[in-house]
C-alpha cells in the first residue's frame, strides 16, 4: 500500500466509523430492562405533608447525625442531599405559595433520594465497578473499598444524587442504597425501607416496581375529587389505608420511562420540571455512551488492528534511517 492509498484508506475508515457512530452506533444497546424482582418506592407528592419523618428515619437507619440549624440540633434541617444526607424533602413554591399542589401561587413537596434507575448512569460510568445494580432487586449500591473517588458517577447521574464528602481528606461517595447496604440489610431481612416505614401518610410507599407502577396508574385513572383509599407502608400488604379526595395528577408516572425508567417513581399534581426533575427523554444516556464505547472498543478489535497497521507503517518509515533515527 503506498502512502496515498494509505491516506485514502485511513480517511475512508475515519469517515466510515464517524458515519456509523452518527447513525446510532453499530452496536448501540437498548435501555436495560428492569431487574426481575425490582423493588422500589412510589412517592406521591400530593400526599406528602412535609413532616420529614422520612428524613429523620433515614438518618437513624443509616447511623448519620442530623444536620443542625444554629443551636437547633433536635431536628434535621438539611436543605439538600449531601455527604451527610441521603434523603431530603424539598419545598417548591411559586408566587404567593399559598395553595398546596397548585401550579400558580402554590407550593409542593418533593422527595430527593436515589431513584434507583433501571439503567443507572452512575453504574455505567464508574471505572472500578464501585457502583453496581443488583441483578435481582435492581438496588444500586456502593462499595467504598473499590471506589477511587473520581466522582464520574456524580457527572453521570441525571439526578445529582451521589454526593462526595469534600470536607474529609478520606472522603467517600454517599447515596441512598435502599436501606440494604452491608450492616443495614433491611430489604434482605424482609423489612421495608426506613423512609417508607416512617411515612405517616403513605406518600412514600414501598413495594415491587411492578406493584408500585400498577398502583400509580390506578391513581392516574381516578377522577379528581373522587375518594380513594390510599395504602400505607408496603403496597403489597399495606399496614393501613386512609381515605382522601383524589387530586388532579399530572398524566404520567415519573420514572416509568424517563431515561429508561426508575425503581423509585414519583407522582405529582404540578409539572415535574417545577419539582426539579431533569429534562430527560426515554433513551438512557448510559445506553448511548456504552454503544459508542463498544463500537470503538469491543474486544479491543479495532485498537489491535490499528496498532498492527501503525507498527508496520512506523517500521517501514523508520527503517531507511540510520542508527538512532527512530526517535
Amino acid at each position, binding site marked *: 500500500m503506498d502512502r496515498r492509498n494509505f491516506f485514502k484508506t485511513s480517511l475512508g475508515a475515519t469517515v466510515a466509523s464517524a458515519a456509523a457512530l452518527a447513525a446510532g452506533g453499530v452496536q448501540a444497546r437498548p435501555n436495560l430492562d428492569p431487574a426481575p424482582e425490582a423493588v422500589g418506592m412510589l412517592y406521591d407528592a400530593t400526599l406528602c405533608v412535609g413532616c420529614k419523618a422520612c428524613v429523620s428515619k433515614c438518618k437513624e437507619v443509616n447511623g448519620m447525625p442530623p444536620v443542625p440549624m444554629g443551636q437547633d440540633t433536635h431536628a434535621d434541617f438539611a436543605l439538600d442531599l449531601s455527604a451527610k444526607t441521603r434523603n431530603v424533602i424539598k419545598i417548591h413554591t411559586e408566587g404567593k405559595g399559598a395553595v398546596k399542589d397548585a401550579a400558580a401561587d402554590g407550593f409542593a413537596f418533593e422527595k430527593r433520594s436515589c431513584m434507583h434507575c433501571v439503567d443507572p448512569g452512575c453504574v455505567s460510568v464508574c471505572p472500578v465497578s464501585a457502583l453496581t445494580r443488583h441483578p435481582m432487586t435492581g438496588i444500586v449500591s456502593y462499595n467504598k473499598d473499590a471506589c477511587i473517588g473520581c466522582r464520574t458517577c456524580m457527572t453521570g447521574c441525571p439526578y445529582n444524587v451521589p454526593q462526595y464528602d469534600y470536607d474529609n481528606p478520606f472522603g467517600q461517595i454517599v447515596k441512598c442504597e435502599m436501606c440494604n447496604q452491608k450492616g443495614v440489610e433491611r430489604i434482605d431481612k424482609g423489612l421495608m425501607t426506613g423512609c417508607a416505614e416512617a411515612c405517616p401518610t403513605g406518600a412514600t410507599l414501598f413495594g415491587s416496581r411492578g406493584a408500585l407502577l400498577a398502583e400509580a396508574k390506578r391513581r392516574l385513572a381516578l377522577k379528581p375529587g373522587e375518594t380513594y383509599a390510599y395504602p400505607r407502608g408496603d403496597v403489597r400488604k399495606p399496614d393501613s389505608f386512609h381515605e382522601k379526595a383524589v387530586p388532579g395528577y399530572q398524566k404520567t408516572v415519573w420514572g416509568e420511562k424517563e431515561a429508561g425508567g426508575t425503581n423509585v417513581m414519583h407522582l405529582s399534581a404540578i409539572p415535574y420540571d417545577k419539582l426539579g426533575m431533569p429534562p430527560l427523554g426515554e433513551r438512557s444516556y448510559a445506553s448511548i455512551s456504552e454503544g*459508542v464505547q463498544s463500537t470503538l472498543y469491543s474486544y479491543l478489535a479495532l485498537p489491535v488492528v490499528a496498532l498492527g497497521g501503525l507498527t508496520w507503517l512506523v517500521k517501514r518509515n523508520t527503517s531507511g534511517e540510520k542508527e538512532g533515527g527512530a526517535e
Partner: protein
Amino acid sequence: MSHHYEALDRRPVLTPFFLLMVAIAAIGTIFLITRFVAGMGAVANLNGGYPWGVWVIYDIVVGTALACGGYALAVTVYVFNKGRYHPLIRPALLTSLLGYGFAGFGAFVDMGRYWNGYNIFLPWHMNTHAVMLEVGLCVAAYILVLFIEFSPTLLEWLRKQTGWQVRAEAWRKLLDKGLFFFIALGILLPTMHQSSLGSFLIAMGYKVHPLWQTLHLQPLLAVLSAFTMGFAIVIFEGSLVTTGFKRHPETHLFTGLGRIMMGLIAAFLAFRFGYLILMGKVGAMFAFDLGSVMFWIETALFAYPLYVLASPVMRENGKHLLYAAVSMILAGSLYRFDGALITYNPGPGYSYFPALPELIMTVATIATEIALYLFIVKTFPVLPREAHATA
C-alpha cells in the same frame, strides 16, 4: 544523534524567570499539602452538582490536548513519512511528556480516594463500559510510552557522562530494536483517550449544553480538536523558543504544519456545523445566551487560523503563523472548557466558580512545567542544532 540536537548548556538555568516559576510552584505546594491534610473542600469549590472543576477540566481534558504536539508530529513523520519535520520531534515529545505527566499528577490530586487508585488496574474491578477506565488506563500507558520515546535524548546525555558511555550505548542499542513499536503505540493511545475525552460528555447527557452535546460525534470532534491543537502547540512553542533564545526560525516547517492544520480545522467545523444543523440546533446557536455567545467566540477563534492559513502569503509569515496557532490553541481549549465546565449545567441550585487556591494550584502546575522545560532543554539535547534546523 548528537549532531542533530543540542543542549543549550551554555545558558544559565537560574534566570529570574526560572526562579519566579519555582516560587509559584512553591506556593502551589502549600495548597497541595492542604488538600491532602484537610480534604479537597479546603482548597476547591467543588460541590454536589459540579464534581469536576478546573483541576479535571484544565489539567486533564484541556491539558492533555495541549500536550498533543508529540502525537500530531508522530503521525506526520511516521505515518505520512514526512521526515523533514523530524527536527521538531524532540521538543514536541518533551512538552507532551510534561503535559501528560502533570495530567497524571492532576488526576491523582483530584482522585478523592487515591489510595484505592490501583483498582483501575485490577481486572475484577474494571468496568469496561466506563469511559473513565479507558482514559485512566490509556493515559497511564501513554505517559510510559512518552518516557520511552523521549529516552534516546536522556541516553545521549548519559553517554557523555564519565563511566556511563558503554552502558548508555548498550541501552540505546536495545531501545532501537523496539522503538518503532512504542512509536506506533504512541500514535494509537492518544487517538484512543483523546476521543474518549469527548465521549465523557455523552453520559453527562442534558448537563452538557446542546451546542456541545453532539453524542455520537463527540469522539471524532475530540480527536480532531486534539490533533489541531497539537500542531498549533508545536508552532507556538517553536516560535517562543526562537524568540526567547534568539534562535533561527523554523518558519518553513511551520508553514507545512499549518497546511495540515487547515484541513483539520475545516473538517472539525464541517462536522460540528453539519451535526448541529441536522439535529435542528440552529435555534440554540442564535439564542444569545451564555452558550450561544461562547459558541460564536469559539467559532471565530477556529475561523481565524483558517483565514490565515488559507492565504499563501500569510502562512509563510512567522508572525501570522504564530497568531493563527494562538487562536487555534484558544479555540480548542475553549471548546473543551465550554462543553465540560463553562456551560455545564447540572440543574437549579448549583453553581461553580473556582476558589483562589484551586486556581493557584493549576497555575502552579503550569509554572512547574515551564521550569522543568527550561531546565531540560538547557541540560539535555532536545532542541535541533542550529545549522541543521534550517537546512
